[in-house]
């Protein structure tokens, strides 16, 4: 097989440097909006926008878990356990710990009754 190449230089678009440079300039100008879009997409802000939905989903999950935990802690069993713990830790009567935990003020008569009991 013959390997003699045909001279296609008259068709070579890069042979005329000026013409080739204008071709490259035309292409890069036409590509500018897409390049700009890509630059924007790779920025930190865009990444944050892109991750908005997963982040919202994660935040919602955390809120849900927190609310569930709070509900469990505030349950009667939880309160009872908490009251006993407070009483044990502070060395105070269970009734007083109950008032502390429930955040309610006892009546003076209740206080007197408690002191008398002690």
């Amino acid at each position, binding site marked *: 097989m*013959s390997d003699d190449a045909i001279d296609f230089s008259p068709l070579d678009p890069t042979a005329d440097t000026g013409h080739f440079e*204008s071709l490259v300039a035309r292409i890069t100008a036409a590509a500018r909006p897409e390049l700009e879009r890509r630059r924007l997409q790779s920025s930190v802000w865009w990444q944050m926008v892109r991750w908005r939905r997963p982040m919202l989903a994660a935040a919602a999950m955390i809120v849900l878990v927190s609310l569930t935990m709070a509900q469990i802690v505030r349950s009667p069993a939880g309160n009872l356990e908490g009251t006993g713990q407070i009483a044990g830790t502070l060395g105070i009567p269970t009734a007083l710990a109950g008032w502390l935990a429930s955040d309610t003020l006892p009546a003076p008569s209740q206080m007197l009754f408690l002191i008398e009991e002690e």
Partner: protein
Amino acid sequence: MGAMAQPHAPNTDVELVVRARGGDAAAFEWLVRRHFRAAFAVALAVCGNRMDAEDVCQEAFVRSLEKLDSCRFPDRFAAWLCEIVRNQALNWLEQRRVRATEPLEEADRTDPSTPASGQERRELRGLLERALAQLSHTQREVVLLHDLDGRTHRDIAAILGVSEVMSRQHLFMAHTALRGILGAHTVKE
């Protein structure tokens, strides 16, 4: 191979593709410079004339940038690009066929950047374009990628999706036909 002689040429297509994906204009420009001739060869094989091939290349390069994320093997960027160019050129051909009520006069489509003194060159271009039109589409792609862009048979095989042996055969047949049409004066020294 097809790369323009420019200072500070970056290393690989992979690096350029990754940077261009991030919107790096310089990287994209390098890809254009490096692969324009191959893209042009493929477009010319379909369009049949230089001016339209250049227009197709412009559209194809912009399209390739838009689709760059789907380039799964950046090390084979040239083959991937040439596929886009071929599709773009075939679309162009189809559109031209649709609006073929007034066929384009090749004489009116002369390159405005060519000075009047380039008359002989223009004639040579016309001669080459007419000779290429006598070949099959694959033969045109092979001979242009080989003789115009300087691609190896291995590259051509990857670009066209054929074996290296087939690429050699196509080239041989193209050369034989072209020599018959053009005569000896267009053979490279």
